[in-house]
């Protein structure tokens, strides 16, 4: 029952759309990009074979709008849809609609997405498959008093989590009873806005746990594989920012048990395609089921780097009805990989999203470096979407080499026009605890309680002072050191006025 796919519409934007289009190029499958108003010349729209404009910039008018996406599917004659992550990736209704209209949805079956997408249902399924789970309850915003009572019973801190969605949205750690109501409300509101579903639930908050997840890959012929783990403990506001494979805490024995657990729930759920089973691992190496993500994860490249498996190509093969050619024994770890998510955010300004034009943009390259960038020089970073602009990955024979190469790659990255998290990553990767592999989901909060990610040596400060003096001197003498042929630069020194308004802050005078 193999149904070869000829044309894939990529129902996404940014780096993940670029990633899927690249897989289409590799497979010789025609790729179709969709774009919103502000994405007409975005990288994914340039890179694909075909281009369909589907609506306004707000995602509700474009990437989240099922009618418009399905219209583009029809207009382009695509026989399959790859949803990427986010937007419609875990929307069971959309997956069902594809199935109903005879379009191959590259992902799990709609009923699997619906079941596992509801964290409460997934929890039940995990218990049925004998997976250890964190103590919790499904009482949420509808029963604030009972929820509070339960929270008190299991003891603060507790975690308030949206039943739908993921990516840290609609999630709050609550330290004490008096902050409980506000967290419940705000998490529910955020979940409703992000996923259209305000249901939240309460879980015991483990102290200093590690986030370790298992990549699974299953076909329609009953084969269920796992591709080992990723550790994603470096998180900010429950958003993963640095991921790696393998996990520094992992042992062969633990990997075997966690892999087996992941495959168990995959079997229980009748899982098809690529997915991720997330766990928390405590300081005693006990692990607890967290949830299943029924999509390609942001951090899938680290698994690709250490296993050599192209996950998007495997997704397509499974969607075509092919049997996996890989067997569990073919999955061998080779070296170590790390991913840093590069966001258009200002780390020194509380990670506020930064919008603007990328006036200079230079990717790192060389040995062991993989960049999945969703933008190009001159790209506009729009305000409408997630501010991640690229994923920078490095591979090394061991973790030490991967970290050294990541530091080198970060130092080569040039991003002008918007703030970025490149400097933030440099600081974290130089952290001794990070280098020792001593991680937990609380790592950033513990190590950088005042969010001061800006560090530089006195020597570098002196050289920066000289640079400022040279610039001012040239400025005063009206000597142009900018390329004269380039009309964009001001003629005074090499300084230009930054586009953003100065971020004024409350000063010391108050």
């Amino acid at each position, binding site marked *: 029952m193999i149904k070869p796919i000829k044309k894939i519409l990529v129902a996404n934007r940014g780096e993940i759309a670029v990633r899927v289009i690249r897989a289409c190029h590799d497979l010789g499958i025609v790729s179709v990009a969709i774009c919103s108003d502000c994405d007409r010349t975005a990288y994914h729209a340039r890179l694909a074979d075909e281009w369909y404009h589907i609506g306004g910039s707000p995602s509700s008018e474009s990437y989240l709008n099922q009618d418009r996406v399905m219209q583009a599917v029809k207009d382009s004659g695509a026989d399959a849809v790859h949803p990427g992550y986010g937007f419609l990736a875990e929307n069971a209704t959309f997956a069902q609609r594809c199935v109903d209209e005879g379009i191959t949805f590259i992902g799990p079956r709609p009923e699997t997405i619906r079941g596992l997408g509801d964290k409460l249902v997934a929890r039940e399924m995990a218990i049925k498959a004998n997976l250890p789970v964190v103590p919790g309850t499904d009482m949420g915003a509808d029963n604030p008093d009972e929820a509070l009572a339960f929270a008190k019973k299991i003891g603060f801190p507790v975690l308030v989590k949206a039943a739908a969605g993921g990516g840290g949205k609609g999630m709050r750690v609550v330290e004490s009873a008096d902050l409980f109501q506000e967290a419940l409300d705000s998490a529910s509101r955020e979940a409703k806005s992000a996923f259209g579903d305000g249901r939240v639930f309460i879980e015991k908050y483990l102290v200093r746990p590690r986030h370790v997840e298992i990549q699974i890959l299953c076909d329609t012929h009953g084969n269920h594989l796992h591709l080992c783990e990723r550790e994603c403990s470096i998180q900010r506001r429950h958003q993963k920012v640095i991921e790696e494979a393998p996990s520094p805490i992992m042992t062969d024995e633990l990997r075997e048990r966690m892999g087996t657990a992941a495959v168990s729930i995959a079997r229980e759920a009748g899982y098809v395609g690529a997915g991720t089973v997330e766990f928390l691992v405590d300081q005693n190496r006990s692990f607890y089921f967290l949830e299943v993500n029924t999509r390609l994860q942001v951090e899938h490249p680290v698994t690709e780097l250490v296993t050599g498996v192209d996950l998007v190509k495997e997704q397509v093969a499974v969607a075509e009805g092919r049997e996996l050619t890989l067997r569990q024994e073919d999955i061998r770890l080779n070296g170590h990989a790390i991913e840093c998510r590069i966001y258009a955010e200002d780390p020194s300004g509380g990670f506020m999203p930064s919008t603007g034009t990328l006036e200079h943009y230079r990717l790192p390259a060389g040995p062991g470096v993989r960049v999945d960038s969703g933008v190009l020089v001159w790209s506009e970073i729009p305000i409408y979407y997630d501010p991640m602009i690229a994923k920078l990955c490095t591979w090394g024979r061991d973790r030490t080499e991967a970290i050294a190469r990541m530091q080198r790659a970060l130092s080569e990255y040039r991003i002008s026009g918007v703030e970025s998290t490149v400097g933030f990553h440099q600081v974290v990767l130089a952290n001794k605890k990070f280098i020792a592999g001593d991680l937990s989901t609380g790592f950033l909060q513990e190590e950088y309680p005042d969010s001061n990610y800006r560090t530089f040596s006195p020597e570098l400060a002196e050289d920066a002072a000289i640079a400022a003096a040279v610039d001012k001197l040239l400025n005063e003498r009206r000597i142009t050191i*900018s390329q004269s042929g380039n009309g964009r630069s001001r003629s005074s020194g090499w300084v230009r006025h930054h586009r953003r308004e100065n*971020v004024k802050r409350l000063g010391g005078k108050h």
Partner: protein
Amino acid sequence: MSRYSVTIDGHEFDIEMEYRSDHMVATVNGRERLVRVHKLQETRALLVIDHLSHEVDIQATGDGGRKIVFMQGTEIPVAIEDYNLAQMRKAAGIGSEEEVDTVFVAPMPGLIVEIKVAPGDTVTAGQPLVVVEAMKMENILKAKGTATVKAVRIAAGQSVEKGEPLIEFE
């Protein structure tokens, strides 16, 4: 010869700049350093300071002498002014311009979800002022110091641009 006072992260540098034949000499707190400048495109230059190679990008961040120097992958906030003016300012007991901001502006474009303060409130550092939704995330904007609210310039449900004034302090 030009002389500047440069402040970075609380450290002050007294820098005298002098032209020589094919380079410059920067005397930093009394120590001479040889500087070569090679222009690149846009706001960038290759600066060679005593043979140390730095690809530098400098951006002005507002009025006055505040700049961001980007080098070695790091953003370094710098304040620069004429040395003599800085001395006079200090002698007269006038603080730098940074200390007199009384307007709290939106650090990013977004939708105002909730306003947590009202005119007359006294806030302390870390206290939530406004909740803004941007890129599908709620961001809580917090006070950076102690101040009294004079006016709230926005309303919940309103969209704001980056740099738009949100709250005025006394």
